[in-house]
């Protein structure tokens, strides 16, 4: 993965608007968060290959970045994104990677199921 280039991601988001897309959205502290530090409240979620469609999508901030997608009945939001994959299949694959090199957030869109 490479550090996010905001303009390139914005172009991809524009190109994906107004059509059905598969989304992978994930936030995680890791399964061992409380094992190593009992003051931590471990939480995680992911949704994989749900179908969404947005009329407006943008990437904001100066890094780490935020992404928001405006849906017909709601929103998709992700914060903390730092890295992107230069993906030959035309998918958008973004991740937030912390100072230890661990993935903490993932935001991905594709025309095909992941």
């Amino acid at each position, binding site marked *: *993965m490479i550090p996010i280039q905001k303009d390139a991601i914005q172009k991809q988001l524009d190109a994906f608007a107004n059509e059905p897309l598969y989304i*992978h959205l*994930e936030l*995680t502290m*890791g*399964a*061992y968060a409380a*094992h190593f530090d009992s003051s931590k409240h471990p939480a995680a979620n*992911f949704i994989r290959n749900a179908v969404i469609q947005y009329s407006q999508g943008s990437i904001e901030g100066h890094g780490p970045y935020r992404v928001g997608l405006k849906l017909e009945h709601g929103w998709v939001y992700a914060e903390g994104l730092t*890295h992107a*994959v230069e993906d030959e299949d035309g*998918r958008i*694959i973004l*991740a937030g*990677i912390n100072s*230890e*090199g*661990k*993935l*903490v957030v*993932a935001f*991905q869109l594709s025309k095909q199921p*992941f």
Partner: protein
Amino acid sequence: MSEKILVVFPHPDDEAFGLSGTLAKFVAEGAQVTYACLTLGEMGRALGNPPIANRESLPLIRKEELIASCQAIGIQDLRMLGFMDKTVEFEPKEVVDAAIRSIYEEVKPTLVFTFFPGYSVHPDHDATGASVIRVLQELPAEERPKVLCIGFSHNMVQDNGEPDVSIDITNYLVQKRNAIAAHQSQFQISEMFGNEDIHSEEVKQRFGKEKFWTYSFQ
């Protein structure tokens, strides 16, 4: 008679930490080892530092790492069962049990290694151990293989006592180190062993024994 060993864990790298030295020792003594690995650890957070993987490439990379780790240990028979990381506890129990039962019946092991259900921290670990115990519980007691468990929750010793089996692996630290090193997207090997000589007294003290709890069936 040499052992026929079945190892059942959910994630690539579970084999490397807790028992790679023990497995290498058994293999050197003539054991046949089958390792059933339920998932590819595809939801892992570690992607290498700097990242060598991403969410979508991670399963393939971890599969290659798993194969390399098994080669380092000498495991002859690796089965990847195709479950999804983090989801083992949500699968219908009969689906997981059937997958493990089918391998058990084919291999007919004399010794089984898995996670101690309820004491293994990661939900996939507990669900995997619980399935192995359910499958073996069905057997008549005289047919049941010995089961050695790994458990590392903070209440493991308090509830179950000290591990009753301790295996000296000081002659197999190279295999253990190489198995852990094979999982390069997950670990920096230097963080584990420092820059210590693998044969140093300090490494032998810290890593020279692997410990297990024998599972007592009801």
